[in-house]
């Protein structure tokens, strides 16, 4: 490849032709003037690409803050974060029914257990359930 045929712009922008790239590189190794031309082109093209600079620090800080708000770190989600776990429907219904059952029957069962002879007379004497006459004719 001679100097007139080398495509520095295509080489710099990476044209998809490996054969041309190989021969261009071979030429650049031996031709100082083409190499200088390429380096100048590359320097200026890179300079042009960087000429827009970078976004301001304020823009970066604003974006960073919004990202933090949208995606908070795990530890800041609080100790009650487990409450947000979804509960399967049937397990939830079963648990609610169990709690309701306990709330309605629990006090009665507890009272019976704590006073097992509460149906007996107040004086504590045994009740003769086989007697032939009524214990009392009083009407309460």
């Amino acid at each position, binding site marked *: 490849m001679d100097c007139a045929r080398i495509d520095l712009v295509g080489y710099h*922008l990476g044209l998809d032709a490996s054969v041309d790239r190989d021969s261009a590189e071979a030429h650049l190794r031996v031709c100082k003037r083409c190499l200088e031309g390429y380096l100048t*082109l590359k320097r200026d093209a890179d300079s042009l690409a960087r000429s*827009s600079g970078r*976004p301001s620090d304020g823009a*970066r800080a604003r*974006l960073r803050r919004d*990202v933090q708000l*949208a995606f908070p770190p795990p530890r800041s989600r609080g100790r009650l974060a487990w409450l947000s776990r979804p509960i399967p429907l049937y397990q939830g219904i079963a648990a609610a029914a169990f709690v309701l059952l306990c709330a309605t029957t629990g006090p009665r069962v507890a009272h019976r257990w704590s006073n097992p002879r509460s149906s007996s007379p107040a004086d504590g004497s045994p009740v003769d359930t086989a007697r032939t006459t009524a214990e009392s004719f009083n009407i309460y």
Partner: protein
Amino acid sequence: METDEQLFTQVRAGNIAAFDSLYARYEHGLFGFLVATLRDRAEAEDALHDTFLRALKAKAPQLEAGGFRAWLFRIARNDALNRCRSRIRGATAQSALPVPEAGPTAEEHLVHHELLVALEGAVDRLPAPLGELYRLRVSGLSYEEMAIVVEVPLGTVKSRMHEMVKLLREEVKPWTAHE
């Protein structure tokens, strides 16, 4: 080193350090692309902000390995195009269009960065689709990624690249050729 896709997942899990790394990788290339497209630094900063947030808030994006960059640039390009359309709708067409800056004057050619000025003018004079490809290319995108971003077949990208190089070569020939 973590891939872009890994950093992206970590940011969504609440790791702000991962965001810093991801931002550092793209602040130059993506911002440069947006500035060149919108011709307005303040609006490019807004577009960069929206691009990142839109990408991060996307619902379960299916990203292949190495697909994040093309996807992010595609979001940025769509955002920039929407902003250009809004300008046209909101203001007079003359002031709204992203008009390329005037080409270099004869005096400017005499300064020591002659090639830089010539190259800048040549890029500005490129037809819009070719100018867009140039900006994506210098931002580091591969041919395949550019095809994804501009939503054209790979073959079209290749033929446009050849056309663009041909135009640029003619423009900068006086500075790169020698006897």
